[in-house]
């Protein structure tokens, strides 16, 4: 299997594509989680579905870049709607999020059904964006993903200090003259890129887990943001590759769910067994303290 990774065309694409996804969503997910915006990724991912369908209907093309642009525009539209509604109405953020997410996704499913019933010979395969189908990744897809991912990571590397400050204390950042809202929009746009990278592999429905899971697991092992970003990338890549390989070994399993299940294993392991913050150790420590008290 390991040798096949480098020789088999499909396997190589699958492994590269899902590793890329894991790295990018792991890093960006850290900022989303630390800013308590985990569900924003969920809304963005669900919003991508109608974007893909509209892009296909307008162009008749299934070229990855076309669909990705559609997804990005829809994600951007959903975020703008969301932030405006939270600012201008008295609705709470979670209510607005739920409405926007369901509306966009419902619209996407309607369009998807419409497309699959149409006479267009080119229509097959759009439904893979629901749960992902890594086996269908071709070299061109992986190249697109690689370019997008590299661009997103380059921005994070360049603005690491600014993003850290924004995530910790946005108001202080603004008082220093950094445009908090602009940086926030930029960070959200980068999350849209992560979502777009994950569309073919994980699909829109489970993409949020891919953003949140690696970050939550990584936070358990470290108290430093830099280390957390790297760990999240490693966890994301590991679950992406292992999930995708399992799914490819039997092409009938959609990739998304398998990747998310591998990720869940990492998250649970970290929640229970990470040295300082793990539940197991803190329970043992508490027991010991209680025992010591009794002895004294």
């Amino acid at each position: 299997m390991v040798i096949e990774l480098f020789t088999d065309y499909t396997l190589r694409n699958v492994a590269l594509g899902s590793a890329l996804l894991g790295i990018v969503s792991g890093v960006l997910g850290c900022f989303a989680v630390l800013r308590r915006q985990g569900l924003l990724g969920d809304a963005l991912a669900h919003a991508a579905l109608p974007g893909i369908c509209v892009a296909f209907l307008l162009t008749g093309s299934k070229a990855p870049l076309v669909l990705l642009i559609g997804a990005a525009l829809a994600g951007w539209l959903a975020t703008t709607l969301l932030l405006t509604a939270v600012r201008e109405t008295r609705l709470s953020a979670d209510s607005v999020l739920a409405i926007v997410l369901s509306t966009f996704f419902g619209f996407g499913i309607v369009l998807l059904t419409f497309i699959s019933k149409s006479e267009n010979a080119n229509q097959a395969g759009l439904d893979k964006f629901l749960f992902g189908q890594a086996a269908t990744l071709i070299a061109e897809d992986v190249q697109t993903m690689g370019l997008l991912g590299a661009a997103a990571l380059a921005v994070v590397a360049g603005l690491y200090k600014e993003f850290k400050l924004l995530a910790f204390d946005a108001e202080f950042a603004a008082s220093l003259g950094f445009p908090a809202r602009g940086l926030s929009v930029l960070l959200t746009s980068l999350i849209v890129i992560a979502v777009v990278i994950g569309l073919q592999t994980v699909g829109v429905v489970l993409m949020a887990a891919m953003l949140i899971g690696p970050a939550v697991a990584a936070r358990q092992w470290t108290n430093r943001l830099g280390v957390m970003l790297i760990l999240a990338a490693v966890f994301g890549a590991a679950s992406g590759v292992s999930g995708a390989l399992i799914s490819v070994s039997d092409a009938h399993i959609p990739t998304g769910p398998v990747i998310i299940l591998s990720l869940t294993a990492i998250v649970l392991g970290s929640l229970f067994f990470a040295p300082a913050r793990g539940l197991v150790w803190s329970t043992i420590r508490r027991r010991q303290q209680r025992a010591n008290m009794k002895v004294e």
Partner: protein
Amino acid sequence: MSNVSIDHPVVIHDLTVAYRDKPVLWDIELSIPPGKLVAIIGPNGAGKSTLIKAVLGLVPTVAGTVSLFGGSYRERRQMIGYVPQRSSVDWDFPTHALDVVMMGTYGQLGWFKRPGKAQRELALRCLEQVGMADFANRQISQLSGGQQQRVFLARALAQDAQLYFMDEPFVGVDAVTERAIVNLLRDLRARGKTVVCVHHDLDSAPEYFDWLVLLNVRLIAAGPFETTFTSENLRKTYGGTMGAAIKHIEHFEEDRLAISVQADTKRPNGH
């Protein structure tokens, strides 16, 4: 007016701020002289924090102008330090005390540049000034409330400003920290800096500060404590609801008349 505004660190003219349709600050006219420790005092919802945030351009204003050392906030940013309320951030953030203090240097560093050795050393000195040098590498969630507050103060010191705005620095801190903050404020004053604090505790206010701003949506009074901290002004600020406030003012006046007053140990904690 322009003569006054250049040596006055803060000159506020006709400032009005509203959330939705409700005015939070109404027509504030205020000018703060240099080298003072200034307390902003008023009841809950008086707009004390909002006043600071409006001056720093963090909340939109409906009307009015703010001039800092004769210029706009944007022009004078490098001369101004800010200590937000401690509760405004998540202290479980994955970082350590020294790293938070270094954030105070980000404004001078500007875009893209990372903090280096010089910033590290400056941040360490700032931590020393607030008695926190031993905690430089401590994860911030493992600090006590008072220690977290001192980290925030050290971060503002790292900004190396002429004028500081602090939002309730004394809330929820231990006695050691309270002492440390008072000493720090006096040290800043001795170095010619101006410090403007939102403050809750009427009891300690005259001891810690020398200039007073009484606020309740409108500006009630502003000036040195001797002339401004009067029962008449406090009654106007707090309405008839705060008997305790009046009692404290009476103590203050009696103190000034050098009449020994038996200490009223019970302090209003202001929440």
